[in-house]
C-alpha cells in the first residue's frame, strides 16, 4: 500500500513523499517501513512503543492510535508530523 511520508522524515526516504510498504496492521506496516528505511520507525514510535508527541497516523482519513489496527492492501496511510513551539 501507499504511505505518505511527512516532510521532516523524507530524508529517510531519499526525498520520497510517498513510499510503498506492506503490513496486516499499522504496527506491521511501521516495521516494514523500518526495514526499508532503517531508523524511520524510531522517529515515530519510542522505545516504550508509544507514538511520539504530535505524530499522527491516518488510515483512509481516520486517525489511528491503536497500532494493532488491521490494514487492507487498498488502504491509504498518511503519516503527519506536527510542528509547534518556538
Amino acid at each position, binding site marked *: 500500500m*501507499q504511505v*505518505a*511520508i*511527512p*516532510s*521532516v*522524515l*523524507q*530524508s*529517510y*526516504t*531519499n526525498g*520520497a*513523499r*510517498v*513510499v*510503498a510498504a506492506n503490513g496486516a496492521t499499522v504496527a506491521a506496516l511501521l516495521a516494514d517501513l523500518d526495514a*526499508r*528505511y*532503517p*531508523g524511520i520507525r*524510531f*522517529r*515515530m514510535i*519510542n*522505545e*516504550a512503543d*508509544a507514538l*511520539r*508527541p*504530535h*505524530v*499522527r497516523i*491516518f488510515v483512509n*482519513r481516520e486517525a489511528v492510535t491503536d497500532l494493532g489496527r488491521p490494514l487492507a492492501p487498498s488502504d*491509504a496511510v*498518511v*503519516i*503527519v*508530523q*506536527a*510542528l*509547534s*513551539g518556538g
Partner: protein
Amino acid sequence: MLARVDRHIGEVTMSETTVPPGSRAFEPMPVSLDVRNVEPLSLAGLTVVVATKKGVFYLTAAPGRARFTLLGPSFLGHIVHHAVVDPRDRRTLLVALRTGHLGPTVFRSTDFGASWREASKPPAFAKPKDARKSVAVEQVFWLTPGHADEPGAWYAGTSPEGLFRTEDGGDTWQGVAGWNDHPKWIEWTGDMSQRNPDGSPIHSILIDPRDAKHMYFGTGSAGVFETTDQGASWKLLNTGMLSPTGPDPHPEFGYDPHCMQLHPRAPDLLYQQNHCGIYRMHRPDARWVRIGDNMPRDVGDIGFPIALHPRDPQTAWVFPMDGTDVWPRTCPGGRPAVYRTRDGGESWTRLDAGFPARAWYTVLRQSMAVDAEPTVGVYLGTTNGEVWGSVDEGERWTCLAAHLPHVYSVEVADFST
C-alpha cells in the same frame, strides 16, 4: 490520490503532506535526518564548538587567537544539547540532539564536520522488566568520550536519567544495565511528575584517566554517583552537600550537582557547581567541602557551570547566577561576571572587564570551557545567544559572537592535524 492534510489545531500547525499519484520504486537509503551544513564545512585549528537550541555553530581561531570566525550552522532547526570533539583523534565530533517532536538521537562526523551520519541505534531504554518504569529517552543531554585506552567508546547521559555506552564511535548505543536497571533506579530518579521542566538528566560523566572502570556522574534528582567497575555497580557520593529539597538538609540522596569536573592532571580532585553552592572533594576523602562560602555574600555561590584550568588543579572559573527567592537565573544584580579561584576555592576574584554593565542572562552547565594554550583561553555561551571569550585566563572578555540562538553547550577543540 490521498487528500492533502493541512490543518491547524490551536497553535499546532500540521505539516503539509500532499500525495502525488503513483508509487515510487523501493530504494533503501542510508539512515539520515536532514542535517546538511548550511555552508560547506571543514574545521581546522582551535575551534569553539557552540551547541544551541537551533543548531551547532563554530568559532575558529586565527593564529594567536587574535580573531575568531563564525561558521555554521550545522543541524539548523534542531535542538542540540551537546556537541563534543573526540580528543583521541581530534577529527570526530558527536552531537546530541532532539529533532523537534521526532525524539532524541546522536549524530557523528569523522571528517571535521564536513559530513554527518545518524546513529543506527540511538540511546534508548530497554524494554522494562518493572511495569512502573515505562520510560523513553526524551533528550540525549550529555556526551563524554571514553577512556584513552578505549578508542571508539563514548558515554551518553539522557533525560530521564539513562546512561548509555557505545563502542563503535557512536553508531550503536547500549544501556549501562548496572545503572538503567538498578533496583533503586525509580527511587533515585524520583516521581516523573516532579521532574525539572526540561527534564532531569545524567550529566558530568567523568572518567578517571588512570582507570577506565572508575567513573562518576551527576543527576539533578539524586546527586553524585561513583562506580569502580565500569558501571556494573554504583554508590552515592553525596556527603557534605546541602540538599535543596525536603526538611532534611543531608539526606542519603536528593541533591542537585549542576556541573562536576575532575582535574585531568590531578584526578583525585573533583570540583562541583551545585544548586546549593560550590564544592570540592579530594579523594580518597568522600566528603564535599563547600568552597563557595568564600564567594562575596552579595553574589553567592549559585550557578550552573564550573571550568578547570587544564594544568593547574588550584584554578577554576564559575559564572554565578541569582539564586534568590524565585531563582531568576540571571547574573546577580544584572552584572555579568566570571569568578576565578587560584587557590582551590579559598578565595575568588571577580573578572568582569569587557562584559556589559547590565545584562540578564545565564550560562548553562555545559556552556563554559577552556582551551589548553599556554595562557588559557576561557569561553562561555549565554542563554541570549552570545559567546564570550577571554584569551588571558579571564582578565578581559570579548564578545565573540552575538545573535545566536539560546546556547546549550560550549566545547573547545583543536583540530590541528
